[in-house]
């Protein structure tokens, strides 16, 4: 097997056997299986749904679930590696062919890869480490009517509640701003937006 695009590590031995088994599926069956796979890849949290759909596929096509799961494990190696390395659909197709999948099925999978890769890339970027991610912001503003030191006040205050993700916990941070501070904050945030946009 020549150099693969999706990985630099040696591929497990079982993979060529699994690809051979895949080639035995009809085009219709392969297309259904591919759909199940991509639905899982685009919604990786839906593990139970994925397993249920695999089980249905196995029953409907009279395949045993155990071997099917092994086949699926082998197939998933390629899209996972491809995502990490930003591979093109041609490279994905080439890799499947190198692993032993038929040209027809490799081309089909590569097509589906092309269609789904924007969503998948966005998901992968979203998983990238973020420090103290700002998750939510709530605000209220009002007027201070009076205080124990000043009978009549009439000044505007703005209160922000920032919900920050620290590790796996959420922490609430409460801040009060005066009106000039608010306008200054808004101005700075608009500058940040311009900066971010110039880099996108």
């Amino acid at each position, binding site marked *: 097997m020549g150099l693969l695009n999706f990985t630099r590590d040696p591929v497990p031995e079982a993979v060529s056997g699994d690809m051979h088994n895949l080639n035995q599926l009809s085009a219709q069956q392969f297309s259904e299986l591919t759909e199940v796979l991509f639905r899982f890849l685009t919604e990786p949290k839906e593990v139970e749904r994925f397993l249920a759909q695999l089980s249905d596929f196995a029953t409907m096509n009279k395949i045993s679930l155990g071997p099917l799961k092994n086949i699926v494990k082998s197939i998933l190696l390629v899209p996972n590696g491809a995502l990490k390395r930003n591979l093109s659909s041609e490279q994905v197709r080439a890799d499947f062919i190198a692993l032993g999948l038929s040209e027809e099925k490799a081309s089909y999978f590569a097509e589906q890869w092309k269609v789904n890769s924007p969503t998948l890339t966005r998901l992968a970027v979203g998983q*990238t480490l973020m420090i103290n*991610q700002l998750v939510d912001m709530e605000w209220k503003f009002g007027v201070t009517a009076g205080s124990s030191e000043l009978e009549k006040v009439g000044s505007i205050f703005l209160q922000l509640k920032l919900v920050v993700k620290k590790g796996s916990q959420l922490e609430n941070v409460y801040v*009060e701003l005066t*009106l000039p501070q608010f306008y200054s904050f808004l101005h*700075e*945030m608009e500058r940040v937006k311009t*900066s971010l946009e110039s*880099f996108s």
Partner: protein
Amino acid sequence: MAALRDGDFAALQMLLKAPSKDAVRQLCQECFSSPPAALGPLAQRAGPGLAVSAEEAEQLVSALHNLTRHVVYRGFTGAEDILCLFPENFHQNLKNLLTKIILENISAWRNEAQASQISLPRLVDMDWRVDIKTSSDSIVRMAVPTCLLQLKIQEDAALCGNNPVVSALTVELSKETLDTMLEGLGRIRDQLSAVANK
């Protein structure tokens, strides 16, 4: 908030023993700014300069504190309002001097009262930077801009006394989060202008 008591004006007349008008002015400012708990030590410092006993000094300092705080509380702006507070038989020149000193300081004192009002932790400073993420364990090559925002937040001044605790919070915002935040801030600005235009 301090309310004026009966003995206060009697105690204030001890200011007639002050060495100069500036001394009176100085004492007024110190009495206003001092929290009730710190009036004792202030009296001990001020007493010798006025040639009064320790007990008299305490009464005087307390009276001045009450008077200045009361005027700021009521939000008086004119001399008449302040002059009306004094009883009939109060020393005329001292009354005028005190009124003058109070009027000179009233807006600074008002600002001081507002600044030391109870509040949630206050924003004191904010800095930001924009980074470009180029690689991670989930994607080997990318160019994703992200914003790091550092907010310096000071705890309630009243709770910290003279040593305000300032903590720094650094948060990371993605472009989407920033856009949502700006939307929210924009809505606040619109509502503020609606309120201002009423």
